């Protein structure tokens, strides 16, 4: 190969590599990004069973049911509608009735949301950002806990 051909091959190889990386990135974004919903959004959204989403809202009062083993079920509400969630594992320290949570997982065939992670507020001052914004939009929650 001449010098020119060699250089061309190197540049071509580099571009192919970058192209592959870009393709993979966008494929992964399409496949793996998970959308955030509040319970009332689900009526209009097309969420398939098994599709990974994040579901946020407040833990509805009186819905926390602890099973005999480490499993627990509760309902997440935005005061318009609510969704039943089941979870097995250690709940975050600030998981309480009436508190904002974000759960991540997917719907089972029976309409129950099966969460594999549950996030609550970091401390008493903050609420998960998406939940706070979602509730504000719906006019359910006003910023009072802030200070």
């Amino acid at each position, binding site marked *: 190969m001449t010098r020119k051909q060699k250089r061309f091959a190197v540049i071509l190889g580099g571009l192919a590599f970058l192209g592959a990386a870009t393709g993979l990135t966008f494929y992964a974004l399409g496949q793996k990004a998970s959308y955030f919903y509040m319970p009332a959004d689900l009526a209009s959204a097309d969420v398939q069973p098994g599709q990974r989403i994040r579901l946020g809202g407040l833990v509805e009062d009186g819905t926390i049911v602890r099973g005999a083993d*480490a499993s627990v079920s509760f309902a997440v509400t935005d005061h318009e509608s609510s969704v039943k969630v089941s979870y097995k*594992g250690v709940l975050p320290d600030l998981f309480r009735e009436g508190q904002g949570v974000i759960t991540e997982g997917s719907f089972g065939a029976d309409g129950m949301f099966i969460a594999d992670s549950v996030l609550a507020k970091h401390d008493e001052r903050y609420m998960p950002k998406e939940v706070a914004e979602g509730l504000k939009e719906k006019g359910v929650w006003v910023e009072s806990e802030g200070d």
Partner: protein
Amino acid sequence: MIEIGHFALVLAFALALVQATVPLVGTRIGDERMMASAGTVAVACFALTALSFAVLASAYALSDFSVANVWENSHSLKPMLYKITGTWGNHEGSMLLWVLILTFFGSLVAVFGGNLPASLKANVLAVQGMIGAVFLLFVLITSNPFVRLDPAPIEGRDLNPVLQDIGLAVHPPLLYLGYVGFSVCFSFAVAALIDGRIDAAWARWVRPWTLVAWVFLTGGIAMGSYWAYYELGWGGFWFWDPVENASFMPWLSGTALLHSAIVMEKRSALKIWTLLLSILTFSLSLLGTFLVRSGVLTSVHAFASDPSRGVFILCILVLFIGGSLALFALRASALTPGGLFQPISREGALVLNNLFLTTATATILVGTLYPLVVEAFSQDKISVGAPFFNLTFAPLMVPLLILVPFGPLLAWKRGDALAAAQRLMAAFALALLAVLITYLFIDGASVLAALGAGLGFWLIFGALTDLAVKSGAGSASLATMAKRFAGLPRSMFGTALAHLGLGLTVLGIVGTLGFGAEKILAMRPGETVEIADHTLRFDGIYPVRGPNYTESRGRFYLLDAAGNPKAEISSAKRLFPVRQTTTTEAGIRTMGFSQLYISLGDETTDGGTVVRIWWKPLVTLIWGGALVMMLGGAMSLADRRLRVGAPGRRRKPAEAATAGAT
């Protein structure tokens, strides 16, 4: 008292303005005294910022609640260590620490830059002064920690309990030393662009500064990872959280910079690329500061958010990244490009390393910013988490890791891939053996996990091969080898150690993810559970009082074969009454390189307690490997040729002889 700190900070800002302008004018008009003023001003600027920081820290130590910042983030009952570390456990204090470290690096350049050409030194310090001025202004305008309260409250509101940990003493300072350390590389790059030339001094100076920043950033990230691991009680060591990514991106591009700087130093090639990488790495540090400090992300790191801060940092971001890249676009073509080389050569290998590392940085950047972009243009709120990063980052890293051992064995200019492969035969055989042993003798080992373990060993043996080959293995006698080994330049040990550390980290990750075990169950006192050949007995929950918290401590006993307790592990939940916050104190027992990890959950209706137990094989190697990498970096920094101010010239011929022999 506190006003002294405020005043000192205003003075530091004024000095930073002087530092940003006077030397620059000096280089234009050729005034040597104006150029030389940069050093003195930089040191004074650091001294004033340090005074300001010390004043704030003492207000924390004395629990002076008349200072709003102290009142919001401290409490008189807090242990002294957390009172002091609480200084930077909040937005204002942490930005002050940021600026303190920035001015510290400026003064380092001033003190150790004696052998720099005068105009380069003046320009570097001027750019450093510009960054300092803007960030000092940011602290003074939007994040002033010196605001008084009148009347002074009697008691403070306490520090977020998650931050009341030794980790806060170590993680942020280390991380900032890394983040901000790259500002020196940035200043050197912009100074070169202002001057319109890259001289030999530039090339020699960029690598040690990159090394310093890289060593600290490695430590900061590793420490942050270990802190999250034991404090959050989730048992994970990396969550692909945007805030983690914010620190990981400068690390990746800093690693690329470290490698391209070698090419520039040794072969004076890749000059323009190295310059661009210097700019990009610090830009990513700034981006990280923006992501973490502006409150666009929710995380433990986002303290109270205030939109004006976000806009301010965004302006800083546009100013420095945009400005430096524009300067680059204008001036880069005027710079003389470096030498050419063959694709198969040490330079070629390092270019490949850069290609992989920068692409990986770009993927993480896309994944981190994508949710923000989507949210800005639509109502959709999405999150890009571990599944995305695992799918994109891993395929980029695996080939890079496979290629790592080849790099150091290739010669400069024109390498021989076949010869390198032959030299690596032994390492390859050992790695293959590790794969087979793992697959055949460890229960439940998947092919993938076994191959992963092999990859870790490949890196480790590859690094050792490099040292053996350079000591003359195969051709020289054992005595000669030992002699040559002792005489190898420290930078060679540095390379080998850093690559070996990388292998250890890979091994730790593979061990934890591939061979770990996890159990979630409800346990009642007296019950036992088996996990990965270990038997644990739950003894019950006991109340314990701490200085500013109460604790429900679950006591577990690790049982030996006969059923007798051989070790106690306690895992607790702590309630901090001031903030009505609980934290999880995971119970961790280290056995060899592995750990048993117990996290306590809520009580169940029938008198049990939810317990989550992990067996994490080799998990400590993840951070141990990072320590070895840091050691490698420090070793490289201690190399005579890099040592700042060392009489390098006279020793050069002797070293060139050793290097030539390899």
